[in-house]
């Protein structure tokens, strides 16, 4: 198994590392970078618990090799806060109880951040379509949808 050197910018910080060719991006983020907020629920791209942003695009990091992220800018759940303050999407998930056990929550938040960057006034139907790659076993999604709606409102107010 060959090792490869990669350079990534994670949450604004440049990092260099040697990775085994078969290392998944999610494993690299969790084990090498020790950013454990990105979770593993299935490792085959079904559940979305490992969602993060690679060059601004939403990615399930279990479906990408660490090597493939060479040169990329990565944002993980740990990179959303500013000045020890939660991002509006994070805050909305707290207020509206958009999570229960918390295992899917980071992935849900990342998928919602990505959605709201493109559309800050999504309909319920749009929210449900755009979050359909992220599974949650606890909530029945009702309060997740409400959280995204609340986040959208907060972001719209912020933009004004």
């Amino acid at each position, binding site marked *: 198994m060959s090792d490869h050197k990669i350079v990534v910018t994670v949450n604004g910080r440049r990092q260099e590392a040697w990775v085994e060719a078969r290392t998944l991006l999610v494993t690299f983020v969790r084990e090498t970078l020790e950013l*454990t907020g990105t979770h593993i629920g*299935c*490792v085959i791209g079904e559940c979305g618990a490992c969602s993060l942003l690679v060059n601004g695009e939403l990615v399930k990091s279990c479906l990408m090799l660490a090597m493939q992220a060479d040169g990329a800018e990565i944002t993980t759940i740990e990179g*959303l806060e500013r000045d020890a303050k*939660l991002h509006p999407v994070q805050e909305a998930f707290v207020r509206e*109880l958009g999570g229960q*056990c*918390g295992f899917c929550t980071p992935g849900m938040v990342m998928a919602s951040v990505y959605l709201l960057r493109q559309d800050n006034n999504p309909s319920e139907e749009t929210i449900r379509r755009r979050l359909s790659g992220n599974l949650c*076993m*606890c909530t029945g999604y009702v309060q997740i949808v409400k959280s995204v709606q609340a986040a959208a409102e907060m972001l719209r107010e912020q933009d004004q």
Partner: protein
Amino acid sequence: MKKQPGTEAYRFLGQDVRSKELPRHVSGRGRFVDDNQTRGMAFAAILRSPYPHARIRSVDASRAAAAPGVLAVLTPDEIRRSTQPFKMGRYAAGLPVQISEYAMAVDKVRYVGEPVAAVVAIDAMKAEDALELIDVDYEPLDSVVDPLEAMRPNSALVFDECGSNVVVNRALMFGDVDAALREADVIVRGDYRVHRYSSTALEPFACMASFDPTAGELTVLCNAQIPEVIHDGLKETLGIAAIRVIIADIGGAFGQKIHLIRKYVVITGLLARKCGRPVKWVEDRAEHMMAGGHSCGQIFKVEAGVRKDGTVLGIRIAEIDDVGGAVSTASIHFTNKLSALVNTYRVKNVALEGKSVVTNKCPVVPNRAIGKPALIFVWERMIDRIAEKLGLDPLAVRSINCIRKEEFPYLTPSGNMYDSGDYQRLLDTAAKEFGFAQLRKMQTEALQAGRYLGIGLAMAIEPGGRNAARDMSIAKERAVGAAGGINGATVRIERDGTVTIVLSTPNAGQAHETTACQVAAEVLDISPEFIRIAGPVFDSAVSAWGVASANSGQNFHLYDLGAVQGACQKLREKLLTLSSAIVGRPAESILVKDGTVWSREPREALISVGEVAKLSYSNQTVVPDGLEPGLQATFFYRFPHDVPFILPDENGRVQGQFTFAAGVHSAFVEVDIETGHVKVLRYLIVSDCGTIINPKVVDGMMYGAAAHGISAALGEGHVYDASGQLMTTTFTAYGKPTTQDSPHIEIIHEPCPSPFSVFGQKAAGDGAAIPAPAAIASAVENALKPFGVSVHELPLGPEAVLMLLDKARQKGAASVS
């Protein structure tokens, strides 16, 4: 402590207090097992059976042991040599023979995915690589998949020691069902089936173990729901002198993480002891689907004797439980029904007969309300059938059978003491708010346009706070190791006046931390922002032992909150006594609120609680004689209303649980008769879960549970092929619903506080999973009424719906010709 709603408002109870758990989860600071790393840590991987049923001739792990990075291996021989089997507990009540169940298969494998060997290596990939080097010589045996075939005399045996695949056979009768059937105007019969599904927690099982040979202490950090099961399992199997169990965040549990997980904690612990390093093991998704535990496939034969007006005089429910390839949970799907046997109804004569049948499938576990969704499916299908047969309104049949509100507390024929309820009000609210009359009009109009809409209704109780002695109602030995429920909590006022709570129950997503803080805030009259939960949430080194309740029978609302309330009450009284001594005023003339001790008249601040606390820990001269210094209190709560049947009587009458929430679910669906797809257009829950502590938390629990019940009804589930291979090892194959499949759900609360619990609270967790499958079945049947379809089986995935339509059309064609 209990206040009448509307007379004196609570300060914090009933408020949407900010979540204590979510800030860490939304920011990626959760504390799940796999997020931990320690120096020198090694990684375990488990080899699992590819066969549903096979004899293990030999296991040779020598090549794996010699592989690079491998530290140790475990084989069945060693398991047999160096561990003891688990003791059969109350989940196997009534089992006639003792079966040795070890942490891994030792003689035979009995389901695909059963652990056969394990490896520990310096990294996870090396451990997995080494699994391929283990040589297992299997002798495949005929597999037993269909429980009905398993019951035939010539069937292969899953457990040779039992002499039959029917491992538990039991019958309980309360009242006289035969007499009731004789007196009845009409006998209504039905055959029903409910499939295997599970809650598929997003975080699979995980464990870290480290062993200190000098102290003889094994420390495990795992995501089990019930620490006592882990503690006792380790003690029984490994005989280790000192065991410490730590449980931090759990990524969903739903009953799934109570029982089978103990095997893996034992394996991880054993590997840690063997290799002398901390060991981590994390299950993967396919492993969890194969071997993490399923709900029980249940087959029912039911007969009810009914009067012309719809009154049910007696009912006999006979079930066959497909319990899979282990006996240690053989009885739970039977005994758990005792908590809900008569549902919300006044029927006096009830019989429950059951056979637990072992098969070569994954063992069953206490999944989200354990057997009650199936029981209520049967009850509610029967009520609809009775209405149909007698030409009555299904709502009216429910009304006439419901226990009346003036009858509470109500003793059910099987010994439950229902605490409170107004079931008619739930039905009335549902009828009004769901607008049945209007929906029927819509339905008729749609039918003319070739669309098939259906209205469904189901009601159920949600029992809460389990009685450990319940299971013994079917055991020959009536001596009980456990009865009722006890749980403890410790509350401490810190040196700065803030409050810390040590819970004895882990948190698997039910907001235990938020809710416990709210209760403490109420009693201590201080804002919840100054209250924290000591983490990790459970640590046997500091937490109290008791009936831990991360979703187990919804114990938390009763036992843990009772314990937190009790500890805070003690602390409050002590704080007053101590403050009174310190400020030199009579206790009656002062009060404590918001971290300050005040004089009552005139209201002025005397001293901060922080100052009092500091003194209580550092200056014994201010502590009055006879008063123990310090501001820390532990309280063990016990259920106060334990008569008359906390222990089963000779007829098997027993209080299964102690609080009884209830709900009416209404579903409005559209069935596409071309594709068989069912779309839920509207779903309403009218609920009584007593005093609500945190509305958003309670709603969240109900949304999730209902969504799971709806999804299970509409096709989510496990499927085995004829040879016993599991076909549903991924979320997609299993049919887990996404945001697009799960409907919006509405909730209306009609609380009827419990007279038994400290604040009038009742269970609010799994409850909505109980009637949801029945409500969906009722709605689908109603939509397909023009075809004469009747629904007796779950799930109702598209294929099943099309088959129902085909069958009905053939029947229709046959009757025409």
